[in-house]
């Protein structure tokens, strides 16, 4: 039987980052993935490394730390992860949004995020594609972009280079405990002896948790994204709209029309090849990865309002990804007290790409040293911050099983 110090379950950007950081520190690690690298959420998202969309607080602090690591990764990894720091803008198109964003920006500035409000003319000078009738926008030079699939692949290949074993197409069937401690992982390709398991399964993390009797409050939140044909440079850096921020943190403020029910908010960026990625939605529809005509229409209608030039560009594809959503919007990271050797690294919702670097580093610290030297309060990220009796209510109220569809 194989033996390893740590088994990382999940080959998305988070699992690959954790495996990479552990292997680089000399830990013997085995990555187990049911399908293929970045075959789930990490391969069904956009490419923004957005700081402005993070909640001012621990969330933003982690993102700031994470982004510091990207230039090093661009150098270190054998895959070109296409990291760029082209800045980001959140377009504001009502006076009411302007007031809300004013407060948001002030809180972000206090935490060290360089972001400012631009009036309409200045915003349109930076981003000429914006519609004439916008009110203004924010701008932060610190927002960046990365290719999420290459990033996951870069971490994966890096982990292998440092000696990690990898098992793709391998499904975890169970986790064996002995006296409350992890002792082996059972897969459809044999068992692996190990005392440590990292659950990096994103939206599927609750299924792995259930194998050891843990109730993990992560539910899928669907995001639909549209891809256009490649066009000449049109969009500079990341573009979001104020509604995107609202849909993320306070969806109840969006009202009750169709577009609000779908959680429509603009996310827009252009890939190295010139394709535009137009998002997106935030829907609680269980584990369905279908796209819907109604949502695609709503997303495009909204996008064209803010960037009229999109009207003449052909759509070539659309896809949906499931974001792992938690009750407080923060990921679940670190040791699980009840089961020795069981670690969580999941629940990043739409921020997994941006937070992947810091997540790998934090998990590596916690597993090898028992604590982290980074100024991050791990208690606020622990599974134990949730009360078990609240979790079922959370699932049902967010249509986790897709019954309401």
């Amino acid at each position, binding site marked *: 039987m194989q033996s390893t110090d740590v088994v990382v379950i999940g080959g998305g950007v988070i699992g690959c980052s954790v495996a990479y950081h552990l292997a680089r520190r000399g830990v013997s690690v085995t990555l187990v993935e049911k399908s293929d690298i970045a075959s789930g959420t990490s391969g069904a998202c956009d490419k923004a490394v957005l700081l402005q969309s993070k909640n001012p607080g621990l969330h933003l602090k982690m993102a700031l730390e994470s982004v510091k690591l990207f230039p090093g990764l661009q150098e270190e990894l054998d895959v070109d992860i296409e990291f760029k720091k082209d800045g980001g803008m959140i377009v504001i198109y009502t006076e009411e949004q302007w007031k809300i964003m004013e407060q948001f920006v002030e809180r972000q500035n206090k935490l060290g995020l360089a972001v400012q409000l631009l009036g309409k003319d200045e915003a349109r000078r930076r981003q000429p594609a914006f519609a004439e009738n916008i009110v203004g926008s924010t701008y932060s030079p610190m927002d960046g972009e990365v290719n999420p699939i290459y990033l996951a692949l870069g971490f994966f290949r890096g982990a292998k280079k440092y000696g990690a074993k990898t098992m793709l197409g391998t499904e975890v069937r169970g986790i064996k405990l002995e006296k409350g401690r992890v002792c082996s992982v059972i897969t459809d390709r044999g068992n692996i002896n190990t005392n440590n398991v990292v659950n990096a399964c994103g939206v599927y993390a609750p299924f792995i948790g259930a194998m050891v009797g843990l109730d993990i409050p992560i539910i899928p939140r669907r995001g639909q994204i549209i891809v256009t044909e490649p066009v000449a440079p049109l969009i500079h850096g990341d573009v979001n709209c104020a509604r995107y921020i609202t849909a993320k943190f306070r969806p109840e403020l969006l009202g009750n029309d169709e577009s609000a029910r779908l959680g429509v908010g603009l996310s827009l960026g252009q890939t190295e090849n010139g394709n535009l990625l137009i998002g997106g939605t935030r829907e609680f529809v269980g584990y369905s990865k*279908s*796209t*819907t*005509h*109604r949502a695609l*229409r709503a997303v495009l209608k909204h996008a064209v309002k803010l960037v009229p030039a999109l009207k003449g560009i052909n759509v070539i594809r659309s896809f949906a990804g499931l974001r792992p959503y938690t009750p407080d919007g923060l990921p679940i990271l670190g040791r699980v007290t009840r089961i020795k050797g069981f670690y969580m690294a999941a629940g990043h919702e739409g921020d997994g790409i941006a937070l992947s670097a810091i997540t790998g580093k934090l998990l590596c610290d916690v597993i090898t040293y028992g604590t982290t030297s980074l100024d991050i309060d791990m208690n606020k990220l622990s599974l134990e911050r949730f009360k078990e009796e609240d979790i079922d209510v959370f699932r049902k109220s967010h249509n986790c099983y897709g019954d309401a569809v």
Partner: protein
Amino acid sequence: MKTTDIAVIGAGPAGLSCAVEAARAGAQVTVLDENLKPGGQLFKQIHKFFGSREHKAGIRGFRIGQQLLEETEKLGVEVLLDAAVYGIYEDRLIAYITDGKDHTIKAKKIVMATGASENALAFPGCTLPGVMGAGAAQTMINVNRVLPGQKIIMVGSGNVGLIVSYQLMQAGADVLALIEAAPKIGGYGVHAAKIRRAGVQIYTSTTIKEVLGEEKVEGVIAVNLDEKWQQVTGTEKHFNADTVCLAVGLSPLTELAWMAGCEFTFIPSLGGHVPIHDRNMETTLKGIYIAGDITGVEEASSAMEEGRLAGVACAESLEYYDENKALELKNQIWDRLDALRTGPFGEGRFTAKLKQLDARRQLA
């Protein structure tokens, strides 16, 4: 929103046969096709069909197309052209583009009869202008009346390769050679004999090593293959060709079925991944049917029979036919389909289709 009883996607032999059958039962039928003309591949088929009388043997393909179109018109079937269906969404909503604009139609039943596309072959020079599918060349000569080139190399000796070689010669081109990677000819002996009599040499166990040319095809180097399908150095033959036609099989056009969420099974002899369907041609999604080459590559006669079957089944489920009447009609069609899938060429398809039906049974 536009609605209809039955929406048929694809106005080829399968789609039109389906529409005719369902409309005859009284259903409201709308056919959508991305092309500017209906008929699918029928209108380029100037040769006579094989089989028995009920399969329209002896009638040329384009005449069958004309008959089908006359019938659809008589029965009041709506045919939407320049309608590229790009998705099937929630509650059987079909989204399509016409004249650059987005449209939708909601149907009680959907029949996907999207057909197949030609396979490509990779070799140095395969992207040069002048390298094309044999079906594309056939469309050029028989529909558009344009010669794709003067000096042709045909690759592949299935019926498409053999028939199109002959038609290219009829259209005035010179077929320099027909090359086939397998050790024997794939298509019907009568077709092969006909082009041999016309002076075309057929090279078996031979493939393309390289196509030469700067901006277009200027020559072809063929090479022999050994028993292990490896190129034998020193056996190269040079042909002074300006066009290479590839007749190396077809693949079912299944994108819409994948998108809609149909379950698939893998049957190489039908062209790879094919949607699973039952005896009524219904996929694993309720109310969504398939017919023709999308179900696995066969030929026009069985495509038409599958279309009729789907048409009768849709009409039955919408209660335009009672169970007995529908069964009587379906029995006739099943018999004709079985007859088409006999003989040395049909037997393999018969077994493959059984496998496909079996996949459905295992799911249920």
